[in-house]
């Protein structure tokens, strides 16, 4: 193993001083940037050049002092079965986590960290504690040693006597998936551009709002000009704008894909996967098989053309950082054989394919159509008297919504056997979620009075990474499944993580 001694209290890498300084600077600027803008533009305060320089000097000195104090008071070590991190100079803080409670140990590297050869190490703890441990400037060697130590701690318990921890570490890593630039292009093109577009709009609006607070007058002028421009424009212009918008969305998707998945590698060790990817922000995520709560995979109309799936490993995460974590562990651009291999690794022989599909009842269609079709139309009905275009729109909307709901219900089914469940859902894209039944944390049975009249019910299966919903199935099946899921979880001796 490595020569690094994990049990002596260690500080972060000295090179990390630069990083801590920059991080603090960034944090400060991010919190106060509107203030800076105001100060710069109302330039009566900064008439005097010396005041500017003096302010900057004081600011930098304070920040440097903070950095050094922070650095000196930040150290960590392994004591017995615990990982301990101490930090803070004004308010001292000691965080300690039992090694066996640690969910995952991941690293990231942004551009500056890549230059400084340090990494951010993130330790995720399981369950309700939810305290997140982060070390921003760790030398790579130390991070590797720690990662190995924490990872083997758990697996050694499970492995048989003859395979020692030493051997598992040396076991060769096998590359399952390595994305080439051409793959990235395919993935980028087949992203959901509507969603990307909405992200751009949301981001734009947020930026606009923040800027608006500072430059109220100009913003008013521009926005009124914009509205005037829009009201005068004709169909050709609108078409042009839609196409332009679509192009921007595609470019944005491509850029995002390249940044996130550059040189993406999915590697396999016995009982673990490792993901490595990123251009400016490199990340290195370890996924032990037993911690995968749920495997999701999806494909869409464009993805289907290329025959690719987007795969998501859903791991147990504490409440607050659930969303963030889920983004980290996806593998885009999987081909069918990759998917089959991963499914086989995690779930064994696919016996679910032999079991018939159980579809949601047709009444689910009526419920969805009411929700997406009729309710919007009824809400818009006061306008029917005034404008013919609203009546026309309603006539188009209703069948369109029906078509959409039909797509939903056609894909909504599940298969279950004694150990696993797989549900299928989606409308335009198609998504599957599969889990082992003993990973269940809680089960919920739901039945509205409308469902009761038709002997239907819905089920929610909660695991440590989220909820799987089975809507509108036969009440008898729902109850039977409910009882079975409880029974299976209660007698199961396998750990859920």
């Amino acid at each position, binding site marked *: 193993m490595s020569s690094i001694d994990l049990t002596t209290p260690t500080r972060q890498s000295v090179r990390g001083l630069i990083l801590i300084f920059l991080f603090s600077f960034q944090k400060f600027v991010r919190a106060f940037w509107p203030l800076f803008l105001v100060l710069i533009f109302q330039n009566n305060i900064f008439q005097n050049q010396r005041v500017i320089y003096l302010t900057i000097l004081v600011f930098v000195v304070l920040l440097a002092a903070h950095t050094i104090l922070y650095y000196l008071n930040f150290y960590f070590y392994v004591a017995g079965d615990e990982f301990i991190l101490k930090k803070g100079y004004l308010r001292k803080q000691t965080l300690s986590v039992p090694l066996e409670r640690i969910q995952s140990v991941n690293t990231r590297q942004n551009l500056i960290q890549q230059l400084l050869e340090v990494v951010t190490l993130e330790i995720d703890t*399981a*369950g*309700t504690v939810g305290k997140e441990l982060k070390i921003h400037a760790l030398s790579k060697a130390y991070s590797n040693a720690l990662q190995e130590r924490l990872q083997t701690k758990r697996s050694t318990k499970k492995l048989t006597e003859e395979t020692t921890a030493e051997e598992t570490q040396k076991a060769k890593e096998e590359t399952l998936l390595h994305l080439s630039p051409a793959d990235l292009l395919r993935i980028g093109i087949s992203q959901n551009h509507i969603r990307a577009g909405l992200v751009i709009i949301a981001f734009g609006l947020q930026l606009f709002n923040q800027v608006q607070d500072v430059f109220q007058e100009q913003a008013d002028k521009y926005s009124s000009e914009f509205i005037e421009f829009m009201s005068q424009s004709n169909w050709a212009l609108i078409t042009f704008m839609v196409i332009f918008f679509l192009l921007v969305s595609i470019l944005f998707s491509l850029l995002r894909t390249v940044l996130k998945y550059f040189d993406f590698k999915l590697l396999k060790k016995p009982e673990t996967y490792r993901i490595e990817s990123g251009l400016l922000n490199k990340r290195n995520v370890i996924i032990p098989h037993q911690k995968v709560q749920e495997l999701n995979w999806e494909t869409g109309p464009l993805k289907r053309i290329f025959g690719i799936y987007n795969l998501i490993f859903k791991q*147990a995460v*504490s*409440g607050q950082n*659930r969303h963030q974590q889920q983004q980290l562990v996806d593998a885009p651009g999987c081909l069918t054989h990759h998917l089959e291999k991963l499914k086989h690794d995690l779930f064994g022989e696919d016996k679910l394919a032999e*079991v*018939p*599909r*159980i*579809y949601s009842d*047709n009444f689910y269609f009526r419920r969805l159509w009411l929700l997406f079709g009729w309710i919007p139309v009824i809400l818009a009905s006061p306008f029917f008297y005034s404008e013919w275009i609203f009546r026309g729109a309603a006539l188009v909307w209703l069948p369109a919504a029906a078509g959409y709901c039909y797509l939903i*219900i*056609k894909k909504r089914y599940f298969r*279950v*056997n*004694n150990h696993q469940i797989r549900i299928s859902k989606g409308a335009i894209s198609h998504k599957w979620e599969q889990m082992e039944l003993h990973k*269940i*944390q*809680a*089960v*919920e*049975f*739901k*039945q*509205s*009075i409308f469902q*009761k009249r038709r002997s239907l019910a819905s089920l*929610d299966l*909660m*695991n*440590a990474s*989220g*909820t799987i919903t089975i809507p509108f*199935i*036969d009440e*008898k*099946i729902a*109850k*039977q*499944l*409910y*009882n*079975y899921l*409880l*029974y299976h*979880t*209660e007698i*199961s001796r396998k750990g*859920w*993580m």
Partner: protein
Amino acid sequence: MENFTNSVVLPENLPEIEPGKFTGLNRKFLTILYVRILIVFLILAGGLIAFVSLAEETISGKFIYLIAGAILLIIAYSAVITTLGFPKKGYLIREKDVSFQRGLITYRVTSVPLNRIQHVEVNQGVLAKMLQLSSVKIYTAGGTSSDLTIPGLSEPEALKLKAFLSGKISEHE
């Protein structure tokens, strides 16, 4: 789409959860539910009064009556639902799991296997303290959606429940 039923190959005679076997909540808990509705009513009514008195232009009486009517309707509706739905609320402790049921319009039962409980907490609000009621919150690793809260228990009942569940947790560790 009609190829279902009969095909589920799950064991048949597993223990069932019967709604009739659930223990109801303490009647005093209904008072807390009514007070909650009253608070919502006061906020809504206060908001309406503030809006009418602070508005710069005079607002037509018709509009005010419409809003006031809507508020009364919502309050009356929740009062009726709360009253009728109260008997539906209840909990059930079995050897290996704990369940909570509720809901008049949409009936829900949630069950947590005892071997999945992370920890248990007894909570008591100000009003509950006056009425000597407590609630028991059961945490799992599944996040907020799968945490189970059993409200409206008498203090000794809540403590007993917590002691029982805590004992079960240490058994499974």
